[in-house]
Each structure stands twice: as structure tokens, then as C-alpha cells.
């Protein structure tokens, strides 16, 4: 089963997100009110580890499990969409206290009502697909 490793990675992700309390609506509020270092510590640590990992991968030209070179596709350079999309995302993030990963982790944890947020997110994704040609990018 080639898929098992992804399920395992997902399980680890879910547990880490709960144990670090990054899935908590309260913690997100605390972050946006600058009243604790908690979330900044988590995101900062993840980015720092990520930077080191990416640096080592590039430096040592590490290959993935299939022996292929590891590449991270560059995002394109027009930045209107990043700024506007980011703004809309941020509004939803603060309101629901969840981003796309944690909303699923929360359902697993037992907050079934989070399924409404997931449903909304699917609608939003679909809506973007419908009107993206009319938006500035």
C-alpha cells in the first residue's frame, strides 16, 4: 500500500495540530490580539525547520523516496491575487478560527459543527472557480 505513508503523515499532522493547540479558535484569537507568543512560536518553528530542510535539500541535492530530485514549484510573480486572496482568507480564518487543515482535524476531534465550515469552504472554492476570470490577479 503506497498510500499508507500519507495517511500516517496525516495522522501525525492531526495529532501535532491538536497537541500544539494550533487548531483552537481561542489560540487564533490570542494570536490576532497579540496577547501570547504561542502561535507565533509554532509558525516560527515550522518555518525555521522548513527553511533548514529546504536549504539542506538544495545544498545536498537530496532525492525523494522515488529517487527523483525534490523541487518546489515557484509561485508566479503577480501579487494582486496573493494580497486580495490573502485578505479574504484572513477574514474567514479569524471568524472560524480554522484554516483548511484544522477544520478537518476538528471534525475528527468531535466538533461536528465544523462540517458547516468545510461545506462553506467548498462553496467558496467553487465560487472562485466560477468567477475567477472576472477578478484582478
Amino acid at each position, binding site marked *: 500500500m503506497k*498510500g499508507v505513508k*500519507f*495517511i500516517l*503523515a*496525516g*495522522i501525525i*499532522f*492531526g495529532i*501535532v*495540530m*491538536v497537541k500544539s*493547540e494550533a487548531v483552537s479558535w*481561542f489560540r487564533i*484569537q*490570542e494570536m*490576532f*490580539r497579540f*496577547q*501570547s507568543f504561542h502561535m507565533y512560536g509554532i509558525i516560527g518553528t*515550522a*518555518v525555521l525547520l*522548513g*527553511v533548514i530542510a529546504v536549504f539542506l*535539500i538544495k545544498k545536498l541535492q*537530496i532525492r*525523494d*523516496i522515488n529517487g527523483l530530485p*525534490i523541487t518546489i514549484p515557484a*509561485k508566479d510573480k503577480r501579487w494582486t*491575487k*496573493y494580497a*486580495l486572496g*490573502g*485578505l*479574504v*482568507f*484572513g477574514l*474567514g*480564518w479569524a*471568524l472560524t478560527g480554522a*484554516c*483548511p*487543515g484544522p*477544520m*478537518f482535524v476538528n471534525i*475528527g*476531534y468531535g*466538533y461536528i*459543527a*465544523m462540517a458547516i*465550515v468545510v461545506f*462553506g*469552504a*467548498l*462553496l*467558496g*472554492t467553487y465560487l*472562485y*472557480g*466560477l468567477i475567477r476570470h472576472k477578478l484582478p490577479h
Partner: protein
Amino acid sequence: MLLFFGKTFGFSSNLSTICSMAGAGKKVSLFDFDWRTQKWNLLFLLGAIAGGFISNTWLNNNEPLKLAGTTIADLKAIGIQFDGQLEPGQLFDLQYLSLKNIILMLFGGLMIGFGSRYAGGCTSGHAISGLSNLQIPSLVAVIGFFAGGLIMTHFLFPLIF
């Protein structure tokens, strides 16, 4: 770790994948791709749900969250009680599910889905994977995430709650 498995980490792509699975590709070109190529990410999603379940069922030490006192006071002022749990019960417990809550969550989800596709990624794709690779567009997106979050928290919350 996912890079090692030959993938780039980004959770919100799953939302597109589910749209595609539901047949949205017939009407909207954005979802016209073979969702089977994204199966690994859906498996990761299933794992994440299982991870949430495992955390609550077997790894829960029932210690209350140590939220900053200032946050507790601020939230109390807008009528949201802190009860030591991960999520505010008055918003996310099924027994308190009101029409207002449903609309808030639906609308919040809508903005997350719309925004993450518009910006080409969410917290995991931009803040974690993107910043790790020192990509300027991701930095712009993360600044956008924060601008949106600050507007919601400081200007819109007092109006909503």
C-alpha cells in the same frame, strides 16, 4: 517530510479536489483535472481527521487550555466565554447551533475557500511551505492573511458578537 515523499504540502488543494470529484469540472474549468492524481493529499486529509480523533480519544489529558488572561477578558467583553476547551462551545457545540452560528460558519468557510484558491494556497501552502522556500509571493499572501485576520478580530468582531 512530504517533500521527501515527492509532494509539496498544501492543504487547501483538497477543496478543489473534492469539487472536482463532485463533478464540478464539467461546468468550471478550474476543476477539470483528474482528481485521482491528488489521492495522496486526500489520504493525508483522512489521516488528519483520524489524528484529531486519536488526540481526543487516547491522548487527551483533560488539561484546560492556558489562554492568555487578556484574551479571556477581551472575549468576555464581546460575550464569548472561555471554558478551557479547544473551541468555544457556544459557537461549535451542536446543542447551541443557532441560525446565526450556521450563517457565520458558512460565511467564514466561504471566505476561507474563496480566499485560499484566489491566493493559491492557505496557511500550510504559503506560511509554511512557501516561506520555507523563501518565496516573496507567499510573504505577500501571509501579510494578506494577517491583514484580514486583524480586520475581522478588531473591527468586525465587535459588530458581529
